[in-house]
């Protein structure tokens, strides 16, 4: 699918977030480790960055932002995680956290590719705040990993 407007990028990211949320939700039921179940449950409920950020925009703004054309198709294809995630039910908490950190990095990379292009101020602000949210998530995940509780 060739991306030509911001709407396509947003849709791709939203689909990815939804997929992740469902994936974590599934993991929170299927994992054989209780710690991983708790962690996955927590993460499945915190994958709504896109929604949170879009909520701040008025309908007119949203329409303008979505219609903004992009010069280049953001090639996040080098991130294989967009194709799907596979972790076994026996995966340890630190493996799950590592995977989650990679997903965040993928999203940040996707958003950055939009920011590198000449886009309107509104689009820039939206993607900057999305990038910020994902980077904060990434730091949080790294801290959880460093605490070594699960």
């Amino acid at each position: 699918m060739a991306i030509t407007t911001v709407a396509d990028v947003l849709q791709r990211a939203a689909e990815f977030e939804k997929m992740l949320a469902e994936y974590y939700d599934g993991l929170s039921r299927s994992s054989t480790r209780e710690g991983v179940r708790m962690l996955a449950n927590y993460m499945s409920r915190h994958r709504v960055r896109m929604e949170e950020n879009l909520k701040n925009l008025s309908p007119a703004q949203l329409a303008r932002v979505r219609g903004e054309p992009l010069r280049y198709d953001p090639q996040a294809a080098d991130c294989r995680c967009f194709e799907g995630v596979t972790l076994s039910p026996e995966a340890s908490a630190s493996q799950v956290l590592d995977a989650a950190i990679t997903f965040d990095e993928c999203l940040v990379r996707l958003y950055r590719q939009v920011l590198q292009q000449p886009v309107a101020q509104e689009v820039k602000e939206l993607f900057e705040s999305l990038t910020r949210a994902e980077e904060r998530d990434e730091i949080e995940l790294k801290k959880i990993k460093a605490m070594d509780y699960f």
Partner: protein
Amino acid sequence: MSETSALVILIAAIFTNNILLANFLGMCSFLACSRQLDTAVGLGIAVTFVTGFTTALNFLVQRVLVTLDLEHLTYIAFIAVIAAFVQFVEMLVERISPKLYYSLGIFLPLITVNCAILGTALFMVIRRYNFVQSVGFGFGAGAGWALAIILMAALRQKMGYSNVPRPFQGVAIAMIVTGVMAMVFMGFAGMVNIQ
């Protein structure tokens, strides 16, 4: 010795002998700073200012060197003058518009090595202009460079909407556009010519 009036030289330096589009000098910052129109305008003004005044300064320096029979110092003296002047402009821009200062970033000090400026000073020597002509030529060359980068930035902003084939994206299409612009400017050639 050319007898053309300074005003004619000014016009010619902008249109028919544009330092960037006819001599292809100063390409580095031209390609790097032409993504946003406001940055391009800022850099264009800064370069015009620097070119205009350094050409005048360099003319005086050159005269001193000639009288002392030290013409071999021309290049290094010109570069020193330009470097010092750019430092001055940097301070000025930071004082007047911090926003422009940050958006120009590294390219402000890099005006020092913008070859359009040194090129202008050297053309002035080669073409044996007098002081008034040199000033006209300096400001004309700077304005011509500014015009080219502003046009380029406007075009590149518009290009965001066009579907550029993958191999041509980025600097490649910018170079092609520069070439087309150069050809367009050749249309002015019949108007007036300085050499």
